[in-house]
């Protein structure tokens, strides 16, 4: 199958999957209770509650309700978030930007550390360094993020005072305009050195917390890919030609080992989206994850719906892009499975 056809096919399946996700999540939310919980208060009487039910079509069958929801969602109306006291669509962007900023930095931490550890372990296969690296990497994946974050917070914020919590210093944040919602980008656009430093300073701890968890995935893949490459004939040939080991490694093996490692980017993104929930709660990061956590505890259905749908869409697109890159990089990959 041609790459172009493959991409087209995948793109055609995408809306079906998104539709499926929306049906599942919608059904679940409505089974679990009505979406009007966030509107209710103890002061209301029965007629007022009935009026609300009427307004949200709760007396109609489930598929009709879904239809109303879908129609609204397609026109950009994702309902009203009780947690944010505002329509979901209205508060979405700044939170999205905050989460993406954190995720990108965490990914940077994870990729840098993960690739380095993967090479370190892969070139010292079955030596003690390999075992130690494995334990470190697997530890990252086994740490309860919410617990690890708390411990970093206690040490570096409450006790040492080296790093702040939250996303910004309120005064500095207010002193610059925010056309994009990405603090770093906004600071650069505004030419605010202070803003940039503030942004990076706030990013450090949460990015380390979140990134460390994702290290394992990358390390594991890089290590096994490198081990495989180092057993290839061309490596033996290169060595036989008398090429220094460093050159063999850098010029050939590492570069080739990167190709299969690309495939775990999708996994990494899923991991970061999931981990962001705990990291954002602990570091008071004003992103989607913290919003979701409050929505979950308070039963805010519109937010839960939107969040799950959004992360799935993001996840699906990420996987698609990864597959395309992989297919381009590695001609041996068979398409169409």
């Amino acid at each position, binding site marked *: 199958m041609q790459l172009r056809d493959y991409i087209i096919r995948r793109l055609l399946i995408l809306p079906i999957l998104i539709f499926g*996700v929306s049906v599942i999540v919608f059904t679940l939310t409505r089974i679990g209770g009505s979406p009007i919980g966030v509107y209710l208060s103890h002061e209301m009487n029965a007629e007022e509650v009935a009026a609300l039910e009427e307004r949200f079509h709760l007396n109609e069958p489930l598929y009709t309700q879904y239809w109303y929801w879908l129609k609204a969602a397609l026109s950009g109306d994702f309902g009203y978030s009780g947690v944010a006291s505002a329509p979901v669509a209205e508060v979405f962007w700044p939170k999205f930007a905050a989460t993406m900023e954190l995720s990108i930095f965490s990914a940077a931490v994870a990729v840098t550390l993960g690739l380095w550890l993967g090479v370190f372990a892969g070139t010292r296969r079955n030596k003690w360094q390999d075992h130690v690296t*494995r334990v470190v990497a697997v530890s990252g994946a086994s740490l309860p993020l919410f*617990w690890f974050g708390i411990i970093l917070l206690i040490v570096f914020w409450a006790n040492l005072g080296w790093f702040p919590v939250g996303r910004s210093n309120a005064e500095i944040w207010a002193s610059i305009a925010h056309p994009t919602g990405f603090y770093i980008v906004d600071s650069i656009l505004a030419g605010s050195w202070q803003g940039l430093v503030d942004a990076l300073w706030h990013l450090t701890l949460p990015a380390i917390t979140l990134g460390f968890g994702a290290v394992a995935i990358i390390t594991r893949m890089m290590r096994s890919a490198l081990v495989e490459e180092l057993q290839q004939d061309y490596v033996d040939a290169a060595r036989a030609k008398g090429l220094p080991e460093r050159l063999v490694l850098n010029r050939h093996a590492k570069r080739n080992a990167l190709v299969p490692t690309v495939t775990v980017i999708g996994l990494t993104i*899923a991991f970061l*989206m999931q981990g962001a*929930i705990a990291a954002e709660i602990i570091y008071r990061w004003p992103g989607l994850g913290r919003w979701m956590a409050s929505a979950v505890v308070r039963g805010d259905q519109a937010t839960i719906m939107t969040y799950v749908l959004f992360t799935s869409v993001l*996840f699906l697109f990420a996987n698609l892009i990864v597959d395309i890159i992989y297919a381009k990089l590695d001609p041996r990959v068979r398409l169409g499975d």
Partner: protein
Amino acid sequence: MAVTDLPTPPKRETAFGVRMRRWRDLLKTLLSNPTTFIGFLIIFLLLAMAIFAPFLAPPNVPDPYQMPRDWGATRMPPGTPGFPLGTTNQGGDVLYGVIWGSRTSLQLSVIVVSVTVVIGIAIGSIAGLVGGWIDETLMRIVDVFLSIPELIFALAVAAILGPSFTNIILSLCIVFWVKYARIMRAQIILIRQADYVQAARVIGDTKLSIFFKDMLPNASTPIAVQATLDMGNIVLVGATLSFIGLAESGIAEWGVLVSEGQAGIASGRWWASTFPGLMIFLWALAFNLVGDGLRDALDPRTEDKR
């Protein structure tokens, strides 16, 4: 994942023996790897703790899975007589929580893994064996499930079911079966083409006996790898859900204890969340190490060229 089996000897009577030998070899490889060995050791200790919980800490009456609360002894530091690991804000004995929490975690992971493995095998087998539009439909459903990141899906489901430990189990069961279905189906399709299955069919074995004698055992290795990893992962995800507030409070569960103990950390009361947090970490670490070792031992790419 590809199947790595060497061509099976033609004499089918020895197939069982071959498989046993292969498992023994596998175990030997695993135990010779120091990190995997550490993993096994931790698992062994944690299981012992769970099994002997009633002897290590006398069960609370009437419900042993509820923390015993001594309201006269709240916030006691470790080393307090009667409370070697201290107490929580609600006067709960941290040691009791750590010990009985291992039972809760064991319950959680064993129930979820066995339920999801069974569902996964059933659905994967139906899809793989029946094929056609049933296969197509089931696999599209699997695709939809796989499009939602696990923790987020479980979080949404648990939130909707309402906060309780039972609902956490239920939500994880709803989320975690898909991978097994996919593995099972892939194995069946691969094996169906394999020579020895064709041979068995010629000999006249029924579909059912082929399934049980050849397909299921062959699929068991990748499923075992996934199940081992999930044993750790599920406790991690479950603890995250209860940390966020989706379990009933007062139960002896590690995530709940970390969440409750969080309140005191800033005031120097580190113990109430540190010990249970450490237990979650050890649990997940142990199963990840073993799962990782298992995967490497079975993965053809990392096998030595000899």
